[in-house]
């Protein structure tokens, strides 16, 4: 094989985006936070998608997509963000722009659409997403929304998410800008004026920013804070409503989980309303503990600190047996992480550490310089860090880094599967909670289920190579290796590095002893069969 420069074989322009951590603490230069390279097949979506994922969990809003049908169609209810009440957000609304709208402008249609929907659904808020085409033909969303807002006396908020105007992160920002317009100035608090609020006198209030209640995550988190005597006003945007969002400025503290999408909003609330924020994660024992302790520390109440410790003790004792059981089964396995946002990637590193697993690849779609610095600080030497990876890079990395499990989303799932690697979906369409204590149990069980499944044993031996004559025949292995080398030479394609020790000693053929097998059959049948019989 020819000598390859760099960690994986990729485009010259992509090379700065992939780095290997060499020495502990050493800062690695990694390019990030740029627009995706044309033709590189980024796993990222667009500005609109960033805005949509952040805003869509607002349950009682009309999410109206002003654009051609595709943008609304592909995002219809694709996120498993649950609602405790109304589910207007699960319906897809589009102005379905056609050629005539493009030629003559879509403002009239949009304004009619808003009138129509408000009349039919009586929503408390309408979000109007702009798409690529709107940015080009120059529909004035601001003015249409303003007029509609006055007419119907509800907020009609334009979301500036023209697909091409930046990347997914810019969409997060557009969503936050829309949320800003919903947050109302809190009523004057007479007590607060006299004396600083203290947890002993008034029940403290917080917001959770950057939790989207996928599969009901938030419902496992909120009770923990309530037990500590803290009111959670709203989780943004999981299971939120226009009303709960409007109250957000009443909070004493913001906890930011998905930092990529919500730090911008948290910073704004800090300057606008003087509400400080802390970063927190509700995934994995270590991070949940940290989140609860940090919050209690912030409010400085001894009682609250005690309550936090008590919750942690009870809950950890409750789930530890199951975590330990799984840990015994999966420890030492190698994990690959490819996430949309850096916060989830970071917390996963700790989660895997709790399982005794090692992270060998970590990447995100939208990480920034600070995020990668933190990631680089948190992972072991030899770990490959990648920004805005594409399928070919991921596939090669998975093989080269000998990953046993990948955690990512749907697009990555089938890359892992095709390479015979276990997979855990930590994206929007999972159906079980991963946050909180029970969520972590769900997570470790899913990791175990995928790693321990017997299908991989069958998969490792993909082709049926009958060698039934002598079960003790050891030469088969050498022959296999030779075929592998041969096929690599011939095809030049990416080969799955066959981890020899992982091939069970007894081959498939010995298991089906007694069945009449014709060893030459496959070889004669086709060339391709020979190539793939490794």
């Amino acid at each position, binding site marked *: 094989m020819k000598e390859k420069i760099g960690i994986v074989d990729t485009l010259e322009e992509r090379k700065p985006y992939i780095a290997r951590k060499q020495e502990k603490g050493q800062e690695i230069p990694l390019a990030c936070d740029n627009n995706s390279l044309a033709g590189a097949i980024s796993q990222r979506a667009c500005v609109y998608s960033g805005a949509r994922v952040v805003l869509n969990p607002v349950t009682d809003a009309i999410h109206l997509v002003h654009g051609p049908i595709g943008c609304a169609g592909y995002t219809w209810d694709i996120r498993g963000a649950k609602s405790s009440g109304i589910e207007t957000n699960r319906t897809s609304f589009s102005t379905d722009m*056609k050629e005539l709208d493009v030629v003559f402008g879509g403002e009239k249609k949009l304004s009619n*659409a808003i009138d129509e929907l408000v009349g039919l659904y009586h929503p408390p808020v309408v979000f109007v997403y702009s*798409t690529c085409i709107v940015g080009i033909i120059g529909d004035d969303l601001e003015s249409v929304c303003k007029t509609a807002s006055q007419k119907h006396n509800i907020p009609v908020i334009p979301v500036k998410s023209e697909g091409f105007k930046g990347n997914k992160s810019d969409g997060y920002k557009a969503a936050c800008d829309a949320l800003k317009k919903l947050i109302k100035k809190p009523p004057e608090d007479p007590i607060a004026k006299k004396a600083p609020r203290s947890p002993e006198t008034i029940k403290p209030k917080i917001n959770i920013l950057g939790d989207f209640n996928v599969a009901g995550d938030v419902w496992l988190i909120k009770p923990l804070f309530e037990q500590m005597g803290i009111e959670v006003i709203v989780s943004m945007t999981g299971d939120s409503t226009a009303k709960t969002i409007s109250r957000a400025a009443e909070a004493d503290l913001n906890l930011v989980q998905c930092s990529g999408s919500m730090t911008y909003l948290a910073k704004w609330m800090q300057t606008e309303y003087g509400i400080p924020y802390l970063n927190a994660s509700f995934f994995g024992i270590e991070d949940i503990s940290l989140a609860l302790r940090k919050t209690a520390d912030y409010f400085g109440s001894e009682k609250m600190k005690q309550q936090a410790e008590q919750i942690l003790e009870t809950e950890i004792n409750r789930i530890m047996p199951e975590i330990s059981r799984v840990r015994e089964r999966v420890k030492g396995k190698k994990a690959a992480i490819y996430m949309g946002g850096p916060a989830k990637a970071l917390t996963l590193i700790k989660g895997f550490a709790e399982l005794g697993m090692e992270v060998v690849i970590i990447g995100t779609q939208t990480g920034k310089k600070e995020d990668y610095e933190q990631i680089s600080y948190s992972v072991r030497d030899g770990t490959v860090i990648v920004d805005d990876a594409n399928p070919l890079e991921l596939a090669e990395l998975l093989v080269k880094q000998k990953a046993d499990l990948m955690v990512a989303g749907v697009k990555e799932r089938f890359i892992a*599967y095709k390479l015979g690697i276990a997979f855990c979906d930590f994206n929007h369409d999972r159906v079980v909670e991963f946050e909180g204590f029970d969520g972590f149990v769900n997570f470790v069980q899913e990791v175990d289920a995928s790693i321990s499944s017997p299908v991989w044993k069958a998969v490792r031996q*993909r082709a049926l190579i009958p060698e039934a004559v002598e079960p003790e025949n050891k030469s088969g292995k050498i022959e296999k290796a030779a075929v592998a080398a041969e096929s690599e030479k011939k095809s030049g394609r990416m080969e799955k590095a066959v981890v020899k020790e992982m091939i069970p000693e007894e081959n498939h053929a010995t298991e089906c002893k007694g069945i009449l097998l014709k060893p030459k059959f496959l070889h004669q049948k086709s060339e391709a069969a020979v190539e793939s019989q490794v």
Partner: protein
Amino acid sequence: MTKRNYTTVNPCVMCQPMGSALAFKGIENTMVLYHGSQGCSTYMRLHLAHHFREPVDIASSSLSEKGAVYGGRENLKKGLRNVINRYNPKVIGVATTCLAETIGDDVPAIIREFKEEEGIGDDLEKDIIIVPVSTPSYGESHVSGYIKALDAIVRTFAEKPGDEIAEKFPNEKLNVIPVESLSPADVRELKEIFEVMAGGYIFLPDISETFDAPLREDLPKIAQGGTPLSEIADMPNSQASLGLGIVSKNLAVNYLEESHDVPGYSVPIPIGLSNTDSFFTELVKILGCPIPVKYLQERGRLLDAMVDVHKYLYGVKAAIYGDPDFVFSLTTFMLELGMNPVLVATGSKSRDFEVKVRQIVEKINPEFEPVILNGIDFDTLNDAVSQCNPEILIGNSNGRYIAKARNIPLVRVGLPIHDRVGAQRILTVGYRGAMEFLDRITNAILEATDTFTAPVQAEPIAYAEKGNEECVEGMR
């Protein structure tokens, strides 16, 4: 019915570029590149990966604000260069999105320029072939995107620059071109039929392997399989073209007939008895060979199955929705089974749809008066369902909300199917497909109406205890 004039609620169609990907992905060694913003390719990859459960790589020219203002020329060229560099494809299908169309990029001209710069010639065998197709998302639907892409592919390979009158080398082959994307299982079944009946055939596009790939030792950059390029180039030499689908116009079949004198015939997508019958009859007419015994046997088995279930299905009210030709053929089958298709709908705008469906209802059971809708969204379908009161829903998985709300079964077929496995293996064509589908529909109805499985009464206590003891004994 809810009256809406300006809003689409829960779309029942996908956009044109999606259709082009479904077509291009059925061609050997082909990559698809969307000329537009990054999101289009990612969303459609997600949609397809979810449905077929395969990795789906689609490139994007990743247009940025700069590209949108000054034109996407450089991005498109760079995208092509990078795709060639990384994937080494033989063909690149370049489909436009609404963004590229609206900023007015002249894609064929940019491609010409690119080929010149890179020294890519027009030799179909040696050079990389770049096929542009104009598929703005604001025009028509994924169905038209599919038809246009196939037309563009056939034209690119058939038009040999220089030759005034293309020389013909008759090959005795049969071209087969559907107007809508069939499932990989459907394509496999049809290929098997042609394998037996036709001396040679060219099936375009062949997604039987590209979207349903066997697990291999390696992961090829581009999924293996697809219609071989040499075969596509050979299409103008074929003895005839068979178009599958009669509602939508088959541009590729028409083109081959008009420009290359390849006689074109179109039959409905062979779903159900009479449609499969006309399919085989047409094959016999074109090829002059008898129907193989195997298929006559299958036909007999289908008849047997239809007899077995006729009482379960008689008069059962069904609502069918999906792509126009697919729905037309399914409706035919429902009618043949004695079912009452109270609601027949397609998301695509199609005037011929209603006419054709009316004709077939008239022909098979004039007593029925189905509501026939085109260009609908799921909200309209929901209203129509409330009005028509079907007992079963047949269509893609997006109808699950309606089925759930009304507590009626949904038999999943078409695209997308995101909430169940096996979408790539759903077989509906041919006699075998008809049988499989018949079983699925009947079982769904039986499951919904089944009262036998619930325990009605407990066993007498003494008897039950005795039984338990025996059971425990037995286990030891």
